[in-house]
């Protein structure tokens, strides 16, 4: 930053959204500085997905402000926005028999001239992206034949091909087996270490604790917690968010607590 000032990657202020009389999000405010790995957690129906949909502009009838890299969301053209911010929604990517590589190439859309085919640089970025995400072996497979975990990796590769400095992900590890969950989390922390700002919505408190640098917890459409991972893994905080206490055990290698599934044995 030559002028010495760097805007936060993302700044949300007073964001509210309702459907009819039902309020989905109410006065949510937070900042995501560049380089951060923010996990957005909270119970089902807390408004996590809606929050992401407002941030990427899929939902536009909200009140409050979304600022991306110092400029309001509405000031961007969609193609330009896609070069700053990529998005991995909860999606099955459809029934069309595209190959993995074709799907990743779609991530180059914001850079492509409408009248010419992808250039050499686009092809290079796609191959590099496949390599980084460990999906080179899936590149020529029909996406419909991939497992959920493999498909999620290809979708992340597609978002990465946008070469955006911020990546938003909606439940990237839900429904995945433990191995794929771990692989995806390690891809994401790798990206974060290489400088990508990551905002990940997740149900899984332990995953959030393991990879993120900060946690934002939503419940009932409100931000209930925004702070360090260590302080979040505390039953007073967890109860405020989930309405329930958990069994907490210390992580053997790191100085933070993890939750165990199931209540205490009688």
């Amino acid at each position: 930053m030559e002028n010495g000032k760097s805007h936060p990657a993302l700044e949300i202020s007073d964001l509210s959204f309702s459907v009819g009389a039902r309020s989905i999000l109410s006065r949510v405010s937070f900042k995501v500085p560049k380089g951060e790995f923010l996990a957005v957690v909270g119970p089902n129906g807390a408004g996590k997905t809606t929050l992401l949909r407002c941030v990427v502009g899929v939902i536009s009838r909200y009140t409050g402000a979304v600022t991306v890299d110092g400029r309001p969301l509405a000031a961007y053209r969609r193609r330009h926005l896609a070069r700053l911010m990529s998005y991995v929604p909860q999606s099955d990517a459809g029934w069309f028999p595209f190959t993995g590589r074709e799907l990743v190439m779609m991530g180059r859309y914001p850079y492509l001239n409408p009248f010419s085919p992808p250039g050499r640089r686009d092809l290079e970025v796609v191959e590099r992206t496949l390599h980084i995400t460990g999906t080179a072996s899936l590149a020529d497979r029909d996406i419909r034949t991939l497992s959920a975990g493999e498909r999620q990796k290809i979708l992340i590769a597609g978002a990465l091909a946008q070469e955006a400095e911020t990546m938003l992900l909606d439940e990237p590890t839900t429904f995945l087996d433990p191995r794929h969950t771990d692989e995806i989390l390690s891809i994401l922390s790798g990206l974060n270490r290489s400088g990508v700002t990551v905002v990940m919505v997740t149900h899984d408190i332990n995953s959030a604790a393991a990879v993120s640098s900060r946690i934002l917890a939503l419940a009932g459409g409100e931000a209930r917690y925004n702070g360090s991972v260590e302080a979040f893994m505390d039953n007073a905080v967890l109860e405020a968010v989930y309405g329930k206490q958990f069994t907490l055990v210390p992580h053997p290698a790191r100085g933070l607590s993890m939750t165990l599934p199931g209540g205490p044995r009688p």
Partner: protein
Amino acid sequence: MNRTRQVAVLVALLAGTGAVLLMLPLVGMKLTPLRAILDPSGSGTEARIFWMIRVPRVLAGWLAGAALAAAGMAYQALFRNSLATPFTLGVASGAALGAALSIRFGLYLSVAGFSGTPLWAFAGASASILLVYGITRARRGMSTATMLLAGVAVSFFFSSLNLFTQYISDFTHTFRIIRWLMGGVQVAGFRSVLEMAPLVLAGLLITLRLTRELDILATGEEMAAGRGVDVVRTRNMLFFASSLMVGGVVAVCGPIGFVGLMIPHICRLLVGPGHRVLAPASILAGGSFLALCDTFARTIIAPAEIPVGVITALLGGPFFLALLIREGKH
């Protein structure tokens, strides 16, 4: 999908289209001898049948097939469903109502000497696609069941209005409307071809310009928004283009079903799902297919003829069911 294979298929389809356009006009109750066409005076009966009846008819059939296939292909990407077609979504019914109203009430609103029927059909098509899309979207997830039910409901609704239009029409109007609703390429002279051609060509051009967006929309609207596609604008342009095409076709030929179902599906098997190749392939294949079906329809029981819509429905009905059953297995 293999690049060589895609090129080979496109070349074959292009050659097929050339052959269809050059040879089918020769076919009829009597084969037209080449000498008759090339007769410089051009006044013989054979030459007149060739130039004024068969050539425009083959052209109209080709344009109709190309348009219906392209519209079906676009709907399938937008609804992310292989069963979305102008017919199943009720768009053809909407266009038919627009056209029937224009025939019944003589709402010609002629533009530069041409009848306004295609514009009324376009309006009807636009109304129904917006309605069906709205209903399908209102229930989140865009399920096949919701889409087909919405299509059926809209189709029935417009068909009843259409029946009502016939009921209050006099005998000659009613006969015209019913015969035309069977779907057929009964054109004589170039007037009808010129009536539908601007709508169809404009629609085809817009669709061909948006092939990259069609690819991305086929992976989901949210995904497309994240990739930088202006989803609302692109969707509206595609709805506009497909309504132009379906309106143009239905105004002249009536609702011809199932071309938009079979052709994109078969082409996807041949050249893969990428719309940059799929779109031209579907257009070429759709045009040739319908021109062939229509030539069959007008020769098989000559001197009488079958409406071509009957033939495409006989082929397409089982095809639709097979797709529906296969989709259930996924």
